[in-house]
Structure formats: C-alpha cells, structure tokens
C-alpha cells in the first residue's frame, strides 16, 4: 500500500476544454477513495492521469513522496482494473494474472506464489486454465482484480469496474471488493457514477463536477452535510429551497424563513441576515398526526403522487402554503392517500445549510 498525493492537477485538451482544474487530494495509505460524479466530470480522466495514460497540463502526482508525474504507466506503482475488464482474450486466467509479474521478470517461484495468492484471494482457483470468455462477468471482473493485485502495486485504480454487471451481481461484488481491500489493505482509487456504490464502499468520496472537486469527505458527511446544491442533489434525493436567516436566541439554533414556512435550523455557522439554500433528505421528514396549526418546524402539504418501492414509499407533495408549483419529496413506510393533506415535521438537525442564494 502507498500514499498518493494529487497536487493542483489540471488538464486542458488542445481544443481548450478543461477536463481537470486544480485538483488536489491526499489519499492515505490503505484508504478507499471514490471519485464520484456525472458523466464528463473528469473522474476517469483523473484516474487515467494517475495511471499515466493521460499527461497532465500542470500539477503533480506523488506516490509515497516520489514524483511520478512524468513516469510512463509501466513505471508507476499503480495497477488498473478497467471498466471493460480488458482481459487478454487469448490468454487463460492464469496467463492473464501472470502477465504483469512476467513483464517484471520475477522468478518462476515468485510468479507461482503470486498466481496462487491472487487466485485464492478472488476465489478462482478452479478456473485458472479457462479463457476469459468461459467466465461470467463477475468472474472476469475478479480476474481483472487478481491481475492487478498480482503486481502488488501501491495503488489500485478502479475505472467503473462494476458498471457492466447486472444489479444483483454488482451488489455482491461490491461487498467482495471492499472486503478484499480491507483484508489486503491496498490503497484504492475507485471511479463510479453510482452513488450507492460510492456510499457503500468508500472511506472517503470526492464528488466531482466539470473537472473540479466539489466536496471530499466520508460518505456520511457527503450525504448528511453536503457542501452545496450540486452535491446534495447528486447524492440521493434532496429537497432544496432558499431560506432567509434571522437572528437567533439560542446557541447554534437559527430561525429561517422559507416559502413553505419558518423553521428552526441547527448550524455552527453564523448565519444572521444571510440568504442561503437549505436542504433536507426525504427520509428525514416525519408525518405528524393531528398537529395543531403553527406547530414549530411543521408545514402542511398535499400528496400529489407516490411510488411504492417495497421497503419505502416515495411521496411527492405540494406544500399548501406555497404559492408556486414546487413540490417536495418525502419517504414513508406505507403509501398515503392521493390528495390527502398531511402535516410534515422536520427536526432542526435534518437541515443542511448550503451556499448563498
């Protein structure tokens, strides 16, 4: 395992398109960091730049303190797991895994040890003589991982490795990969656009947009305390509205006026007189039965539509106090009646305060 430092990396293509803009991340040894963002945000470009496939316009990459920015991919202490698996179709599983160690001219005994270890780690001992085409998608992905691990690299780079798997297999391999990373302790940089994958697997998530890092934090912080509207909206469902903060009478508790009512919001920031966006997650809303009018942090809304998901029901509602056509989303265990008016309560710590309006 190794420590990776990404320092103010920028990448501009000849046509002027800026794919990366001053990206800086410190990845601790043995950490599982996910680069998350929509298509075209620069996450794969950053990953391939770390691997050495894309030269950067400025900035540096350091692996365990050594500057590798100008090193070719074959000279870097990294190994990559590709989206398409990129297994050599004419080679058996064993030959695929041994390709890297053989290129590094390791002794036969060392190659044998690495092959046996890698096959055992990914539980593919019985398949070593098969060609990749004889394996399932999940097994092929595990061969890709074994091939990378056989290099014993400081950092393993994953480029959307589960995107070609069906939902159930993706779910299963996700846990297997995380368990393997925890067991072997390699440093992992993982690219995905699947937020559930990112939340489930990562020690930290770097949310990217248009070549920039919008927020880098542990999954719970990214979800519960998004830095801005983009992060809040990209990770999970979020209700985002503007709020005008007024003076407060208790410490860290602010009164905010919004178009659906006035709410008490907990925050460590000094928000007096500020106009900011606030957001809350649908599952943090609570339906209050027979709530008296003007109950604190409560608003009334009418059920517009709903979608039963099995374990939860997503309900879209229109606040009755709101003059506009904006809707909010909440989650409940059971479906409600369409057009029913419900009282919704939001706890002060259910809100995240975002950027200025």
């Amino acid at each position, binding site marked *: 395992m190794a420590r990776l430092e990404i320092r103010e990396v920028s990448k501009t293509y000849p046509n002027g398109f800026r794919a990366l803009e001053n990206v800086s991340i410190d990845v601790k040894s043995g950490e599982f960091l996910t680069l998350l963002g929509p298509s075209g945000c620069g996450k794969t470009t950053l990953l391939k730049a770390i691997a050495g496939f894309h030269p950067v316009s400025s900035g540096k990459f350091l692996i365990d303190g050594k500057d590798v920015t100008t090193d070719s*991919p074959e000279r870097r202490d990294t190994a990559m797991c590709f989206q398409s698996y990129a297994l050599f179709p004419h080679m058996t599983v064993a030959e695929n895994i041994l390709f890297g160690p053989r290129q590094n001219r390791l002794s036969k005994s060392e190659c044998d040890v690495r092959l046996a270890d890698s096959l055992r780690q990914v539980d593919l001992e019985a398949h070593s003589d098969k060609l990749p085409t004889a394996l399932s998608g999940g097994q092929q992905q595990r061969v890709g991982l074994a091939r990378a691990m056989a290099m014993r690299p400081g950092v393993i780079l994953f480029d959307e490795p589960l995107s070609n798997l069906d939902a159930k297999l993706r779910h299963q391999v996700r846990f297997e990969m995380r368990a393997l990373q925890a067991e072997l302790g390699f440093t992992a940089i993982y690219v995905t656009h699947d937020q559930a994958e990112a939340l489930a697997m990562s020690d930290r998530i770097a949310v990217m947009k248009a070549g920039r890092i919008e927020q880098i934090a542990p999954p719970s912080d990214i979800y519960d305390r998004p830095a801005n509207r983009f992060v809040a909206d990209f990770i999970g469902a979020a209700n985002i509205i503007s709020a005008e903060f007024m003076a407060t009478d208790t410490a860290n508790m602010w009164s905010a006026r919004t178009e659906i009512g006035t709410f008490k919001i907990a925050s460590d920031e000094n928000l007096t007189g500020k106009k900011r966006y606030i957001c809350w997650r649908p599952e943090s809303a609570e339906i209050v039965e027979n709530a008296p009018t003007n109950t604190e942090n409560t608003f009334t809304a009418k059920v517009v539509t709903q979608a039963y998901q099995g374990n939860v029901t997503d309900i879209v509602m229109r606040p009755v106090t709101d003059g506009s056509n904006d809707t909010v989303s909440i989650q409940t265990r059971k479906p409600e009646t369409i057009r029913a008016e419900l009282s919704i309560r939001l706890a002060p710590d259910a809100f995240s305060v975002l950027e200025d309006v």
Partner: protein
Amino acid sequence: MRAYSPSNWKHTGVVLLCLLPGLGLIILLIGTVISMAVAQSVGYFNFSGPSEFSLIYWQKQLASPFLHRSVLYSAKISLLSSLISVGLAYMFAMWLRRPFPGSTMLGGLLKAPMMVPGLVAAFLLLNVIAFHGFVNEFLLWTNIISKPLRMQNDSFGTAVIFLQVWKQMPFALLVLIGPVQSIHNEIFDAARDLGASAWTRFRKIVLPLTLTAMQAALILVFIRAAGDFSFQVIVGPREVSSMAQYMYTVQRLYGEWNEAAVVAVVLMTMSLTGALLLAAVSQFLVTGRRR
C-alpha cells in the same frame, strides 16, 4: 445404417442446387484450369504431338537447372515480399489504429498503389532507378558519385522485391487494419499498465489477436508475388527467371506446351506449399512460443 428415403434425396438435391451458383462456378473456373494444367503436364492436350499419358515432360523439367533456380528465386522473392509487406502493413495499421487529423487521407494514400497496374509501376520505378534515371542523375549532379550506379536488374532482385512490397503492402494493410483496430484500447492500456513495452504489446497482444488476418495476408501476398511476371520482366535480374517468366519462356521460345504446364503445376504447388508453410510457421511462432 440409415435408409436414404426419396425425401432425403430431394433435400440433398435442393442443397446441391443451392450450392451450384457458388460452388459450381469455383469448380468450373478453378477446377478446369488446374485439371487442364495437370493433364497437359502428363501429356494430354498436346498441341504438337500425340495426346497420351507421359511423364517425360516432368522428367525433363525436374532435371532442368533453370527450373530449380526459378523455384528458389521465386520462393525467395515471394517470402521476402510477403514478410516485408506484412511487417510494414502492421506498422501502418498500428499507426492508423487511432484516428488523428489526416489519418483517413493517409490511409487512402497508402492504399493508392493497389490502383496502379503492375506494369505501370515497374516502368515508373525504372525511370527512377535506371542508368540515367532520377536517382543516378541526382547523385551525379550532386557529385556524390562519379559514374551511374547499376540498380535495375540487380542479381538479388531487390528492385522486384521493392515493387512487390510497394504493390502488395496496401493489400496486406487492407486485410490487417480491421483486426488491429478491433482490439479495444483498454487491452493496450492494460498491457502497458502491467509493464509491457511497445514491442511486447505488439508481440504478445497484437500478433496473437490478429493471427488469422496475418496468416491471410501472408498467404495472399506470397501467392500474388510467386506468380509475378511484369515486375520481373522490367526490373528483375537477367541471369535468373521467375517461375511465371520461365513458364512463358518454355512455352513461347521452345514451344513446349506440356513442359510449360509442368512449370505451371510446380508454380501452383510452390505457391500452395509456401503459403501453408508460412501460415504454419507464423502460427507456431505466435502461439507456440507464447507460454
């Protein structure tokens, strides 16, 4: 034993009828030519004597040192032409694998020699390498040499090989570029990421994955070069003939149709054997030594 019912016969008949337009044409065009040549080589279709079975023509030609030299010379020219053409075609295919500004135009230009007739190409080259051709005139003008160099009709057949490569390389490129381009970029990236140099990537990834196309290119170029007549006549060595040239000489100068047929059968056999050997050797070199 399964009984063959009338319905089976009918079915077989329909299948044969369906195959007739393709298979029938092949048998008609190739089969008749080959069988005619073979028949003539053993004394049939004799235009200047009795048509009867005889091995005399084979005996005469197999004893002829001219035939031996022609076989060796044509095999050498074909082998070198096919190896160099396919090697260069790989180089260009790798270069044109990923599109870049102007790559389509370059690809088109590289294939242009296919549209130039062989005889025209030979005369064009002659203008360049002749005793008073462009190259010699330029070298004399710049005082690099004091008297013209002899480049045409050289004894090794370099000019013929050059023309063969010039003419056949685009053909090999056409065969190879598709399979090379179909290798996913991530396969190359993966090999590079695992420490493979450019040469190793070519040897261990490109060659095995394009083996069939490479064999096809080698076979086709070898066969086309083995049957060369026009390049040899214009710029080839004077002291040795290509198989096609020798066959023409035997028939035209000596009027020996049956012996010319022997040379034709030897030429076809050499083409087939050489092509198959090339395919087998390349298969062994690429896959046999992989482990």
